[in-house]
């Protein structure tokens, strides 16, 4: 990497908040536009940006919007700490610094001509939403689209209207489950792996993309393998504490990998030995 590109990647571009939309009691979707009025940045589904809340800190956040929407960048953020709380508290017109996009994307080229299985848990649906947009926007290039989404409770479900509209698309199967359902909830109750039996998967011609808490991804990958998917047809998205986002600082080192530069998307086959390591 040259010094010029290093400086470019380490310098935030000024963006303005266009809107902040509440998804759940603690999760919000921010739409940002370049302050200059120019087009935003192209990204691959699965990539992330570093968002700088001035005076508070910088955060790695996956891009959750349309890959082909050039005039803005969209992020879905769960407010869990000081920096994320500050981020979701921004108002329309406030400034945010944006670096990136960084990291590897989901294997949308490899999945061409095959069924796409999306398995998401909690806020893990956000980094996968651009894949869903991409597949639905290029429908003839892909086989069946199966979206399996698990959440803690009905009130924690992201993108509820979109889930319903995706389910109405041809050759698309959307199944949603919650870990805890009240009596008014008429959908599935149980962990996301319990949805596999309803999905009528065709493992030999499918690519799976999985995002959620690491424990959930491990269980899902194991289940997919039992159903007949090859390990190198299963992809997972990893998360560690990222700072520089370009593999210099080492904060996000995971075994021999830097999550920011070599990931966040990895083939399950590549990470499996590390996922089974104690306390890594």
């Amino acid at each position: 990497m040259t010094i010029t590109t290093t400086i470019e990647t380490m310098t935030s571009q000024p963006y303005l908040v266009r809107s902040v939309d509440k998804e759940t009691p603690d999760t919000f979707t921010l739409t940002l536009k370049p302050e200059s009025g120019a087009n935003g940045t192209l990204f691959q589904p699965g990539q992330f940006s570093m968002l700088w809340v001035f005076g508070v800190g910088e955060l790695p956040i996956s891009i959750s919007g349309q890959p082909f929407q050039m005039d803005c960048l969209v992020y879905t953020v769960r407010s869990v700490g000081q920096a994320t709380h500050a981020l979701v508290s921004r108002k329309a017109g406030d400034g945010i610094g944006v670096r990136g996009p960084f990291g590897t994307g989901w294997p949308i080229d490899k999945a061409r001509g095959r069924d796409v299985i999306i398995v998401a848990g909690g806020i893990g649906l956000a980094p996968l939403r651009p894949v869903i947009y991409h597949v639905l926007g290029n429908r003839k290039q892909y086989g069946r689209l199966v979206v399996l989404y698990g959440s803690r409770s009905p009130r924690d479900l992201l993108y509820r209207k979109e889930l319903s509209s995706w389910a109405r698309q041809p050759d698309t199967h959307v199944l949603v489950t919650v870990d805890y359902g009240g009596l008014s909830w008429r959908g599935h109750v149980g962990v996301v792996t319990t949805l596999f039996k309803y999905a009528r998967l065709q493992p030999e011609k499918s690519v799976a993309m999985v995002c959620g808490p690491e424990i959930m991804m491990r269980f899902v990958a194991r289940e997919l393998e039992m159903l007949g998917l090859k390990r190198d047809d299963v992809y997972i998205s990893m998360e560690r504490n990222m700072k520089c986002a370009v593999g210099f600082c080492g904060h996000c080192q995971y075994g021999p990998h830097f999550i920011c530069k070599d990931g966040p998307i990895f083939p399950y086959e590549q990470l499996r030995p590390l996922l089974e390591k104690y306390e890594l």
Partner: protein
Amino acid sequence: METLERIIAEHPFFSGLDYGFVNLMVSCASNVRFKGGSYILKEGDPANTFYLVRAGKVAVEVLAPQHKPIIVSTLGVGEILGWSWLLPPFQWKFHARAVEDTRAVALDGKCLRSKCEENHDLGYEILKRFAQIMEQRLEATRLQLLDVYSVKR
């Protein structure tokens, strides 16, 4: 019209079951329907049946003091409802309610228990299949208990 014999033979739970055993099962089986909202079984009641869900959805509920019942899981098409008929004291441990209009095949547990006692090969086949269901549900329950989506983890 589908015969009970065919429904049982084609149900994933009985996949690969010897034809003679399928006939034994049929002699203990009947078709049943439940209206959405009605209870199929209740905690503490004698457990003498299990169900192969053919259409609809069933919620397994736990009663909680000073709260509405809590749904711990739902069971859909192709799944098995109830294993308390198999083990003493033969009492249901949970409530099960049809979330929507539900069709199922009911298998008489008393009838099956006596057939399993008479024919241990059948008994072993049934136990193996139920053990697999129990293992899957235990794993799912453990994952559910981990509360992986909670911020407080």
